[in-house]
């Protein structure tokens, strides 16, 4: 029987079972694992065993069988002794690693050391050579080391789709084909009214299709947060801290692309919270909710908070800011400094937080999908990181702007306001417009022409078109030639060498066939906090006066 066609189902279903096993064990940790949980664990192990046997994965089958036997033993004893919980988790981890091997089409790794360390060797369906010479400590060390290296979750690459949804796709495609012919005949007959009507109809169909596609791409946040209890448990053990993890809103559904992008950042933030935030005991909370057209994911702790003075000292030491700037920066901007590459405020680099992605990577990962990071912290009270996430990674709402002969797109979630500024609102510096007053704030003006190195335009316009946005965490007015409306756009990623362009995050095709670049003001310029890189110093605009 050709089993290769069942491989996909095997991988996704086995993964679910293994994850569920982890979840069950972690959910009852602290209390005893009772009969009902043992039964549930047994069923999961049993399913994995049956599937692995069918696919011919002997080691996974052997390990699942081994766990099944162990669970059977626990069932008879009426519970899992506390000291056995770790062993059980190690076994579940090993199952997961075997699944990764299978997924990567590598030979399954050796499970004999694990089987050998089990005190209660029970008969196993498959013959596996036992190597009792390896010490328990050596294996534990290996397993613990590997489990902290966060593995990108491959479940995000496959989705299960209900057949009704596929049916709806087929229906919509059919309707689009019909609509195409209606358009064609209206065009041939030069019946402009009918053409307009059919175009509107087609617009609705495409909108519907877009909605359906988005639905398919949605996955609950739980696919990421599901592994956090384990992570926090292990970190807490390693650091000797007592940490409570609170997760809220994990049923919130997000686009797969968004989830993929925040998988590593989320783990890093939680790890940081335990490692650097929590002092001896405390709570790490991960909450998610929807806010207008974005989703917010917050990772917060009630620990020591960020020492702002220390951040400033470090930033000065590393020449990331000037002392003049240091004294004028508002608190939330100082906190953003921890995302500058190379700035770690941790007193010591610990085993856990010293590796993996840093805050700079967290921030750029977020910005890559059009999200942003908000940091709040109070010394002695705790720190919170809010990830503002777009609901869809592929289709976004763009503001079109013109600059010289170029038309560019700026994601609307980057635009705070659109302003027309009169000459009398502009403050001059050395004869050039450098800032303008908005309410009580003095907002620096930054010329998009300058950034793109396009020569100065004709200064005949009576007002300046300004896009109020943020660059490197600071509010600025981006001066463009003119704004040219908004539109929904399907963003295509750029490949080498175009992906090297600073601040350019993708491209899209306009209705007239023109390809335009999508720019992200946040990352449009180099390190904002670099010496002399302050917008006021560098990007002054030609005077509108």
């Amino acid at each position, binding site marked *: *029987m050709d089993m290769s066609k069942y491989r996909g189902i*095997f991988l996704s279903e*086995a993964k679910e079972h293994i994850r569920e096993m982890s979840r069950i064990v972690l959910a009852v940790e602290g209390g005893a694992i009772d009969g009902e949980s043992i039964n549930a664990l047994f069923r999961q192990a049993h*399913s994995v065993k049956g599937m692995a046997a069918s696919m011919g994965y002997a080691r996974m089958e052997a390990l699942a069988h081994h766990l099944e036997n162990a669970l059977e033993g626990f069932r008879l004893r009426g519970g899992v002794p506390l000291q056995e919980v770790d062993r059980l988790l190690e076994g579940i981890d090993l199952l997961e690693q075997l699944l990764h091997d299978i997924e990567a089409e590598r030979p399954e790794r050796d499970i004999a050391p694990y089987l050998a360390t089990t005190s209660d060797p029970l008969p196993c369906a498959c013959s596996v050579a036992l190597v009792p010479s390896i010490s328990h400590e050596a294996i534990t060390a290996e397993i613990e080391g590997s489990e902290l290296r966060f593995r990108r979750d491959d479940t995000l690459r496959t989705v299960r789709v209900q057949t009704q949804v596929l049916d709806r796709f087929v229906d919509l495609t059919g309707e689009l084909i019909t609509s195409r012919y209606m358009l064609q005949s209206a065009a041939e007959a030069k019946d402009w009214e009918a053409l307009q009507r059919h175009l509107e109809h087609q617009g609705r169909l495409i909108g519907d299709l877009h909605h359906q596609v988005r639905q398919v791409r949605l996955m609950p946040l739980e696919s990421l947060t599901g592994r956090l209890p384990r992570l926090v448990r292990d970190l807490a053990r390693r650091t000797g801290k007592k940490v409570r993890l609170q997760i809220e809103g994990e049923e919130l559904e997000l686009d797969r692309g968004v989830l993929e992008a925040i998988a590593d950042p989320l783990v890093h933030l939680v790890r940081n919270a335990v490692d650097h935030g929590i002092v001896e005991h405390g709570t790490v909370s991960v909450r998610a909710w929807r806010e207008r057209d974005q989703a917010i994911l917050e990772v917060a702790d009630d620990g020591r908070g960020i020492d702002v003075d220390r951040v400033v000292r470090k930033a000065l030491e590393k020449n990331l800011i000037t002392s003049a700037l240091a004294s004028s920066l508002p608190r939330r901007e100082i906190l953003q400094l921890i995302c500058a590459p190379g700035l770690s405020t941790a007193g010591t680099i610990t085993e856990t937080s010293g590796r993996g992605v840093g805050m700079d990577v967290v921030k750029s990962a977020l910005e890559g999908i059009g999200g942003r990071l908000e940091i709040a912290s109070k010394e002695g009270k705790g720190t919170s990181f809010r990830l503002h996430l777009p609901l869809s990674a592929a289709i976004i709402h763009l503001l079109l702007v013109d600059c010289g002969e170029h038309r560019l797109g700026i994601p609307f979630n980057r635009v705070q306001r659109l302003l027309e500024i009169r000459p009398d609102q502009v403050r001059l510096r050395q004869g050039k417009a450098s800032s303008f007053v908005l309410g009580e704030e003095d907002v620096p003006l930054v010329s998009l022409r300058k950034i793109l190195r396009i020569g100065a335009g004709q200064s005949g316009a009576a007002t300046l078109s300004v896009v109020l946005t943020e660059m490197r965490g600071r509010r600025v007015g981006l001066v463009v030639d003119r704004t040219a409306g908004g539109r929904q756009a399907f963003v295509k990623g750029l490949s080498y060498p175009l992906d090297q362009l600073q601040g350019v995050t993708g491209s899209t095709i306009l209705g007239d066939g023109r390809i335009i670049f999508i720019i992200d003001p946040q990352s449009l310029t180099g390190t904002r906090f670099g010496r002399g890189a302050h917008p006021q110093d560098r990007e002054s605009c030609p005077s509108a006066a």
Partner: protein
Amino acid sequence: MKRIAGMAHRVLIVDDALFMRSILKDIFIGGGFEIAGEMQDGVDGVRAYRELRPDLVIMDLVMPNKSGIEALEEICAEDPAARVVMCSALGQEELVLKAVQVGARDFIVKPFQQERVLEVARRVMEG
């Protein structure tokens, strides 16, 4: 339950794993059977049996909510003529024995082998 000439036997598959259901489904369709339905646990299995009245039930032993044995007991209590074949894995001999005592006609062992599954199914249908 007599088969009407020319009509395929209808099989109800009850297993919590989509993986197993997919394999069984392919085996049975390949063997000329018709799939009456697929259920994921014992509770739904019993309900589907009542509604669909399939010619044959393939029932997993280990399932959430209601085990295969419990579902088998209920089905056999309602319809002593029910043809139920249990799926088992290695190491479940005791359960299989119990299932046969309760009323299972036969059993198939995982990993499934196409010929063996069809052979058991045909034998049960003829018996």
